[in-house]
Structures are given as structure tokens and as C-alpha cells.
């Protein structure tokens, strides 16, 4: 290779390299800052970078009986209960929407789309007001119910798509061989729809773990989830604790997103919203 062609190739790669560099800065710059705050022992104004690094704040956040553990357990329990409730409602609904004759099916689908089509904050405000009347504010049940609204919407969409993608000829074969409808559903339909339903559960779980607005109106001050803990720490100027909580919150999001492609297949994905 001659010098001239090397130089030409270098020049052709220079612009893309610059672009990727800028993108990396924009994407990872803020995240790097989060990491620095999480491990910064001392970082006061004139210093542009932390003057001391360490795990001091991690010990403070995770010492026994600290508020972080309570918030972490609340968050996980609320998310699991939200998944259970949303999926219990969404699996039958998704099966009916995908497979059974329904009056005004398009209208029903529209109802399950609406919550994503308009701003949700006024809805949460009014749910909080209604729950106040029922004594549900500040209870786990109230928070689970308010998390189930977005959860149910995602779950119904994905469950409908998952049941829609099931191969019907296998069901018919099973019925022809003498299997009853329930056995056909258990042995043929459910296993095929299962990855899609797992994907739906993952979405509901993540949405609940990260949910802030609904918990803010319905749960506080009695119930503290990780997002609420993070918000309070940040507003109180305690960036170390806020950043550590933020990193904990990132673990399920990024972890689940790495595995979700295994569960959400293209044939299901292309059916969402139909």
C-alpha cells in the first residue's frame, strides 16, 4: 500500500471517527458523571474533578437497616405484584383480542391505546384524589394499582401480539387428536406464546421499577421506592446517594434489555398494535 492511499483512507475515516467520538461523548458523558459522583468522596466547588474517591457513601447507603434497603425491597415487591396483577388481567384479555370473536374489537383496542396517547400526569393526580377517598394513598395496594395502569397497557398489547403469532394448525391438529380446549391451550398455545408473555412481564417489571410520577402522588410520603429515594436525595443536594441509587436502578434496566431480544421475536414485534 502506498503512502498516498493510506493517507486517503485515513482522511476518509477521519470524519466518521469524529462523529462517533461526539456521539460517544453525548451518550456516555452524562453516565460517566454519574459514576464519578457515585465514587466521589470529596468533590467541592473549585475542583473540576473529585479530589478523593472511595466507597464511603456506598457503605452509608447499604449499611444494615438503612433507608436504601427498605426502598429497594419496596420497589421489587411492588414491581412483582404489578407484574402478577397486570399479567393476570392481560393474558385472558390478550387471548380474547387475538383469537376470539369480540363485539367492537377495534374500539376495545383503542381503549387500550388511549393511556399512551394523552399526557398521563392529570390521570395520576385524579387517581390519587380518588384513592384518598378509599384510604388507598400511602398503601402498597394503592401504588401497585397505579403502576398497573401503564403495566396493563403494555401487557395487553404484547400478549395480544404473542397469541396472534401462535401457529393455529398445531392447535387444530391437537383438537383433531382428541385434546380438549383447555389441554390444547395448556400444551400447545401457551408454550408458543410464552416468550412473548415473558417479554411483556419484563416490560411491566421495568416500568414499575422506574415509575416515579404515580408513586409521587399516591405513595409519598409513606412509601419510598428507589426512584423516590433518588429524587429526595438529589433535591436535598446529596449527589453521591442520588448517583448510587441511580446506578442501582440502571442494573435491572440494562440487564433485562440485554436479554429481551431473546424473548421478543420479530414475528411478535411486528404484530404489536394490530
Amino acid at each position, binding site marked *: 500500500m502506498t503512502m498516498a492511499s493510506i493517507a486517503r483512507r485515513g482522511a476518509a475515516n477521519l470524519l*466518521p*471517527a469524529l*462523529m*462517533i467520538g461526539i*456521539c460517544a461523548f453525548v*451518550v456516555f458523558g*452524562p*453516565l460517566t*458523571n*454519574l459514576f*464519578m*459522583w457515585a465514587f466521589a468522596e470529596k468533590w467541592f466547588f473549585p475542583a*473540576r474533578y473529585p479530589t478523593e474517591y472511595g466507597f464511603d457513601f456506598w457503605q452509608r447507603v447499604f449499611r444494615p437497616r438503612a433507608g436504601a434497603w427498605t426502598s429497594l425491597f419496596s420497589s421489587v415487591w411492588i414491581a412483582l405484584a404489578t407484574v402478577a396483577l397486570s399479567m393476570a*388481567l*392481560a393474558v*385472558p*384479555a390478550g*387471548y*380474547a*383480542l387475538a383469537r*376470539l*370473536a*369480540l*363485539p367492537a374489537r377495534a374500539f*376495545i383496542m383503542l381503549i*387500550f391505546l388511549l*393511556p*399512551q396517547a*394523552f*399526557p398521563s*400526569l*392529570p*390521570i*395520576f*393526580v*385524579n*387517581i*390519587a*384524589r*380518588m384513592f384518598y377517598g378509599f384510604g388507598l394513598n400511602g398503601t402498597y395496594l394503592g401504588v401497585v394499582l397505579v403502576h398497573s*395502569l401503564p403495566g*396493563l*397497557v403494555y401487557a395487553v398489547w404484547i400478549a395480544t401480539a404473542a397469541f396472534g403469532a401462535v401457529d393455529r394448525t398445531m392447535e387444530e391438529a391437537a383438537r383433531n387428536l382428541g385434546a380438549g380446549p383447555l389441554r390444547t391451550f395448556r400444551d400447545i398455545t401457551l408454550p408458543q406464546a410464552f416468550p412473548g408473555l415473558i417479554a411483556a412481564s419484563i416490560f411491566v417489571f421495568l416500568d414499575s421499577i*422506574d415509575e*416515579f*410520577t404515580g408513586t*409521587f*402522588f399516591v405513595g409519598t410520603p409513606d412509601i419510598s421506592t428507589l*426512584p423516590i429515594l*433518588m*429524587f429526595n436525595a*438529589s*433535591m436535598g443536594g446529596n*449527589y453521591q446517594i442520588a448517583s448510587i441509587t*441511580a446506578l442501582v*436502578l*440502571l442494573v435491572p*434496566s*440494562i440487564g433485562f*434489555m440485554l436479554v429481551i431480544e431473546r424473548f421478543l421475536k420479530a414475528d411478535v414485534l411486528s404484530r404489536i398494535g394490530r
Partner: protein
Amino acid sequence: MPTADATPSPLRGKLPGLLLIAPALLAIALLYVVPLARSVIFAFLDQDGGLTTAHLRTAIELYGRDIVFTVLVALASLALISVVSIAIAGYLTLGATPWAVTALRWLYRWPLFIPFIVAGQTARSFLARNGLMNSLLIDSGLMDQATAQSLLDWRGLVLTFAWKQVPFVTLLLAGAMASVDRSTVEAARNMGAGRLRCLIEILLPQVRGTLLVGLILSLVTIMSVLSVPMMVIAGNPTMMTSMMAHRVTYYGDYAVANALGLFSYLITAVAAYAYLRMTLNQHNEGAR
């Protein structure tokens, strides 16, 4: 098949489906339809149960600036989101440097997986006057220390919303662009058209619908997120979401909060209406 003589009554065939979907519909009714109706109704009711527009007038009087601010921030965010996602999706589709396309495809998705509340916290520390962004720019000699300023105002909001929403819109756009017929692009390339021209004149018109859907969903998100404005902006004017929360938590004034909510519905409804008209026009043009 003997279907004609064995037709059951229309409702009987639909009963199993209705029974299966009834619990989910009931939940949506209680958790969405009722609060939605209440949010609209209580914006117009006075204390004695009569109709009034007083709450709407109070909302405009006290929070008119915040409403205008919200609309401007939303428009600026959507403009930035459009430009950046078109550029990224275009590069992913037409880019000539394979390693850069692969790197970009890996890079651009990250913020999608990061919760809004975490994005709010990162923005709060990254964009501050002595935040990491300014520190890095000063140390690399691109900026003078004296000109460093905090971006924690409308600019911080626009940047944070765009940071979170660009991957989502890009994901939709890149998918749509990948399914566009390549032969027209190849033909234009052979005729000597540059990549940028191919993107703007051939690819973009064919994925306009997808772009609009992505932007409308982003608008709904921008109008719904509470954590980001509360964490990025201190003081006035701020986003309507922040003001609604303020009205409820400090004054227990649900009526004015609901009136503000009505304005946020209106803003998204206008966007949805514009989208519907545009797609209808497209259909009519296609029919002609």
C-alpha cells in the same frame, strides 16, 4: 361446512371473549376512564357543583407563561429530536464506513434503557456550571473558564428530552428506512446524487409517517414526565407538569391542576389532529 343453519345468536358466540376481557376492561375503566373523565369534569366545576370557567381563567392567569414555555420547550425538543434522529437513521441506512455504522448502531440505543429519573439526575450534574461537561470542555481547550455557564434552564430540558427520545425515534426511523426499496436510492446514486440528497429527497418522504408517529409519542412523553423538569429547573417559568404537581402538593388545589391538565390534553390533541390530517391528505393524494 354447515355454518349457515347452525349459527348461534350473535352474542352467544362472543360471550367467552367478553368474559375473558371483562376484568382488564374493568381495570382500565377504573384506573383510566374514570380519572380521565374526572380530570375534565373537575376543571369546570365550582365548589357548589355549578359550571364555571374560573379555574381555566386562573390557570391562564397564573400559569400562562408556563404554558407558553412548555409549548416552546416541546417544539424545540421535537425539532432537535427530528434533526438528530434523521441524521443517525440516515447514516445507519446510507453510511459508507462499515465500522462507523456498526459503532453508531451500538452507541445510539443506550439512553433508551435509562429511566427518565436517572436521566434527570445525570443532566442535573452533567450540565451544571461546574459540571463534567464544562470541565471537560475547559480542559480540552475548547472553552474558556470565564464563559462556562449552567445549562440548567430551557436548554437543559431540551437536551435531556432529546437525549432520552432520540434513540426511540431513531429506532422507528431506521426500521422504516431499512424497508424502503433500495433500487430508487441506488438509481439516484448512479445518477450522481450525494448521500445527503438521497436521504432528504428519497428516503425521508417515504418514512415521513413513521417520523410523525415517533414525534407525537415523544410529545406525549414530554408532556407527562414530572421528574426531569423538577430536577433540571428551579424556579419559573417551568413545565406544566411541574406546576400541576406544585398546585396539588402545596395547595391541594385539584381544580386548577385539572384546568392545566386540560391544556396539556389540548396541546397533544392539536398534534394528533395535525398528524391525522396529514395522513388523510396523503391517502387522498394516493387515491387520485
